[in-house]
């Protein structure tokens, strides 16, 4: 199956970009987000915000999206780990089921501090 991936920030280098890159990626059926990262040569620590078809799947430091499924034609956005989407601008935004469940039981308003910048 084929997906379209946009990379934002220094991780764009994985597709020959400096700060921005968009590319088509062929993956086996039933591929997960973690398979995509592996295919691109990115470690999960390098990636923060993850969007699939305009749905937020991950926030920096949570690594919740790794087991999420990908499907043919998906439009994916991967942001380098330092990008912050402040709560003031994201209250009520559409989230994946897994992320939604997480926010019901965990503090999610604050940007999760990371131990090491990439």
């Amino acid at each position: 199956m084929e997906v379209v991936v946009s990379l934002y920030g220094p991780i764009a280098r994985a597709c020959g970009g400096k700060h921005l890159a968009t590319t088509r990626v062929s993956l086996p059926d039933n591929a997960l987000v973690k398979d995509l990262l592996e295919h691109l040569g990115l470690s999960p620590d390098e990636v923060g915000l993850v969007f699939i078809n305009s749905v937020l799947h991950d926030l920096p430091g949570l690594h919740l999206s790794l087991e999420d499924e990908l499907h043919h034609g998906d439009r994916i956005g991967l942001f380098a780990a330092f990008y912050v989407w402040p709560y003031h601008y994201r209250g009520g935004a559409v989230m994946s089921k897994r992320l939604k469940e997480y926010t019901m039981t965990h503090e999610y308003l604050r940007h999760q501090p990371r131990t090491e910048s990439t």
Partner: protein
Amino acid sequence: MTRKILRINMTDLSATYEDIPEKWAKWAGRGLTSAIVYDEVDPTCHPLGPNNKLVIAPGWVSGTPAAPSSGRTSFGGKSPLTGTIKESNSGGLSSQKIARLGIAAIILEGQPKDGKWYYIHIDKDGVTFHDASDLLGKGMEEVDRIMWERHPNKPAVIGIGPVGERLAANAGISVNDPENNPGRYAGRGGLGAVMGARHVKAIVVDDKGGPGVEIKNKDLFTQGRRKLTKAIMAHDITKPGGGLNLYGTDVLMNIINEAGGLPTRNFSSGYFEGAAKISGEMIAEMVEKRKAGMTGHACHPGCIIQCSNIYPGPDGTIIASPIEYETAFALGANCGIDDLDFVARMTKECNDLGLDTIEMGNTIAIAMEAGLLDFGDKEKALALFDEIRKGTPLGRILSNGVAATAKIFGVHRVPVVKGQSMPAYEPRAIKGIGFTYATSTMGADHTSGYTIAPEILGTGQKVDQFTYEGKAELSLAFQATTAFIDSTGYCLFIAFPILDIQEGFEGMVETVAGVMGWDIGPDDVVEIGKEILKKERLFNERAGFTNVDDRLPEFMRYEPLPPHNVVWDVPDEELDKVYAWVHEG
């Protein structure tokens, strides 16, 4: 040393300094502009008439040595765009220079009897009035250049372009940056027309030899300053090499677009296929490729976040500074334009003519919806600024903003609240910000619900995103804390690190307590902020506003927004909870 109120009366061309009266003495920045407007401006006055006033106030910590990112100025009055009270906030040189002259606020009132135009010069020796007839019709680029040629010490230049001279409702007030570029703006709400109604073309402020800012408790101030600086330097969004420093505020373009919340083509979609081309990442690529301009620019001295940029054209000459997220959304995505060079050229026009870029971009989108030009027609969009420059009837219409233009051209899809058009977050897709747009005292405003009080984030307090419970309290806490920060003189972007790093929040409050000699802590912030909001709310009520004005436009209630196909369905009763406290108890 008591701070002074400088009252400049244009009717009798007088300038008097008085000690700040007791009733205003605790305030600065937005708290002070709103207190003065509340006390001295009749809420039913015509905003362009003789009884409106323009109030200019630096914040509590502006002008102090080494308070990081503290050079913001508040401008206040009754807004010609919204008819509400307005506080409009800018960076640039003005805040620190006014504060270092020992001035708490400048009140500009009256109108010259002879109809002449003036510019005003303020320094340690006082105020002088100068004939401005040779400046009329000039854009702010030229005015800034002339003022630095005529007057020594690289002063702050606060001024209006031709749009403000014509008293248009989308006239902004320009403040020069350290490079004497006119790109910093008290943009929203048409306060440039309030300055124009006073027949004042520019106010030049030279702080050399001024008394400086008194700090009552130096140890507390220093302690707070260090904690705040540490938080700013540590947080991913504000640190050196962080999101804002690398990509500017336009770092948000790709995030909000990926989320399906980027208003596109007059708020008809939340996703713009050209967003990456007008993003902060693209600005960085252009600066690197063209080996000209810069990112990581400071809009005022002493800013350690440095999120501004100076944008170069293909031949390496500078087009404009800055390109902000809001500017790129309004002149770009909302117009279906994906060409950063054209966004920059239109920004330059706005900065020179004296227009708020958000309202102007959204107005072009209305013109596109009305069929004057196609969405995406960047050449025709740029050419519209010639109409404004020449003051043609079409130019006059466009410089009065979205609501006026929509009315004239029969457009019903009007993305405004209380007459002011929406910024770069679609409320149907990001409902939290819809609460702020609807209820803010300022009209549709993204900067008035900007941060959050720590007690709302206390352990165990969860806010379920998918019901409305707690949303009103959250929005109120956001708005109140923002009103406090708007009074400090700090750039609002410190709200990001201090939200996440408690020590940073403490430090911010300690710097205010240190300057003013107060005993306050983080728990006092919301209550102080609410005092400001209450005055603004009461002013608006007396100006004729009711709960019916705290609503989003009708079309957003029934028109589904792609890609999520969502409508605005928040019940009115929930919105009414945000300010119910004003008349309770």
